[in-house]
């Protein structure tokens, strides 16, 4: 299997799995229990907290464990917005955010918050100048992804924070795609909140965390007991948290090697695929995740490519309408200025530490054939996109 969908999830590292095992079995105690069995579970969580904190350079007390990156994003946006409600009701996000950010913001709109959705440039980059323009006296929170998993562009978070601080606005960054893949220093970034997810760096699913700068007020999403300092109730998922800690420790130790490995393969993949006619790299050419290569292939559609790649044991992803459950063109690519026709040809290869040079050779061998085959079937390949304009004109009369 040649797996190129690491932004979807990573395989669990065997060492991480081994570290988790005792906490499914003999170490089953509830961390709130006062006897030894509970206390050793509590200790395991606190050890994991130290390791996760080290990965993003913060204090252990600033890490709250959650169930996922999505929960961390929900908690940060809703929790901070609600805690600061009396100070204002305006929130700024971008058009390249994950659904867990966008839908959290949309939900707040129904509760009298006002949300600005910033449009990025053609590389998917959000401009700090646009942030400055969007801030008004009611702005309380800005949430911008550190990198979108669809286009790989790394956003200028430190500069955004600088602007925000001049206006006393809190900044949350969604670091799900970045943590474990590039060095993260939340102190240097200056953010007030930062989301991360364990299965994006070879840890288990069901384990996420939220960095909250000391003193940052937040309301919980889940009310109950005093777990996680009262910020997130519910008996802790001890094995998953232990796994996240182990995965964080390994990611920190191996980060330079991991980055160099995937970057070398990524560059070869980008070089090879962009040599094919009418294949364009999406996202920023340099300022992008080291293991991320995303493209649009003109005149064909993403799902067809994925199915044909799968037939050759190659697994990747697409932001095309056909592959989305909503059957709508990728809002991220549209926001970057791509026409909806072109967005249908989206394909994303996200690399990991297990990928080899041979994997890349296989993709570079099969992709030209697949593209050629699908273009032979496409009504647009010979005449360009003109045919679709004719069709849309003829449809204007009964347009939905």
């Amino acid at each position, binding site marked *: 299997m040649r797996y190129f969908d690491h932004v979807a999830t990573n395989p669990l590292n065997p060492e991480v799995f081994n570290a988790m095992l005792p906490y499914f079995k003999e170490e089953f105690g509830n961390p709130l229990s006062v006897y030894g069995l509970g206390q050793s579970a509590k200790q395991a969580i606190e050890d994991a907290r130290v390791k996760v904190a080290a990965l993003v350079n913060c204090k252990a007390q600033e890490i709250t464990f959650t169930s996922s990156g999505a929960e961390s994003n929900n908690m940060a946006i809703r929790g901070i917005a609600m805690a600061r409600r009396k100070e204002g009701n305006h929130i700024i996000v971008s058009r390249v955010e994950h659904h867990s950010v966008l839908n959290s913001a949309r939900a707040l709109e129904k509760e009298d918050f006002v949300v600005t959705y910033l449009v990025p440039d053609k590389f998917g980059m959000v401009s700090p100048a646009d942030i400055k323009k969007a801030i008004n006296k009611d702005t309380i929170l800005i949430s911008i992804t550190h990198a979108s998993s669809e286009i790989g562009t790394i956003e200028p978070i430190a500069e955004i924070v600088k602007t925000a601080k001049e206006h006393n606005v809190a900044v949350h960054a969604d670091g799900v795609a970045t943590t474990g893949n590039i060095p993260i220093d939340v102190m240097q970034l200056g953010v007030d909140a930062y989301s991360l997810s364990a299965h994006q760096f070879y840890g288990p699913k069901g384990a996420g965390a939220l960095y909250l700068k000391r003193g940052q007020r937040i309301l919980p999403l889940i009310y109950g007991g005093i777990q996680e300092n009262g910020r997130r109730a519910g008996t802790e998922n001890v094995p998953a948290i232990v796994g996240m800690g182990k995965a964080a420790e390994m990611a920190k130790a191996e980060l330079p090697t991991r980055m160099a490995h995937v970057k070398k393969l990524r560059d070869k993949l980008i070089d090879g695929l962009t040599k094919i006619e009418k294949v364009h790299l999406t996202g920023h050419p340099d300022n992008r995740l080291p293991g991320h290569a995303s493209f649009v292939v003109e005149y064909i559609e993403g799902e*067809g490519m994925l199915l044909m790649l799968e037939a050759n044991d190659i697994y990747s992803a697409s932001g095309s309408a*056909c592959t989305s459950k909503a059957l709508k*063109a990728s809002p991220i690519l549209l926001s970057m200025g791509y026409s*909806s026709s072109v967005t249908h040809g989206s394909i994303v290869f996200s690399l990991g530490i297990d990928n080899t040079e041979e994997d890349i050779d296989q993709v570079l061998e099969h992709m030209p054939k697949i593209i050629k085959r699908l273009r032979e079937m496409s*009504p647009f390949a010979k005449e360009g996109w003109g045919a679709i304009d004719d069709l849309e004109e003829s449809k204007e009369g009964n347009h939905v």
Partner: protein
Amino acid sequence: MYSKKLMDHFTNPRNVGEIADADGVGMEGNPTCGDTMKIFIKVKDDIITDAKFQTFGCGAAIAVSSMITEMAKGKTLTEALSITKESVADALDGMPPQKMHCSNLGSDALRKAIEDYHAKGTQK
């Protein structure tokens, strides 16, 4: 997600291509999801003697195009007009519900090709 039969029609699509001297050409598209289908037919004595397609779309859209061109060949124009989205989906051993709407454009494209044939006929 897809049936074996649908995957077969996607992997080995029948009747791909254009007919240079087609008697009728029909194009249908779904502007939201982008799927676009173009069907070419040859007609003799009211019977569809050949049908080919060009399609931009997902696996289901390509399989639908392959299947409908197979179904249309040998049918009279009236018979061909009675091919529905449902009969194409059934012939493919079913389709995911969300794909019925956006990718099952074959019967519409075929109807347009037949209309085009009739329009050309009246011009003659």
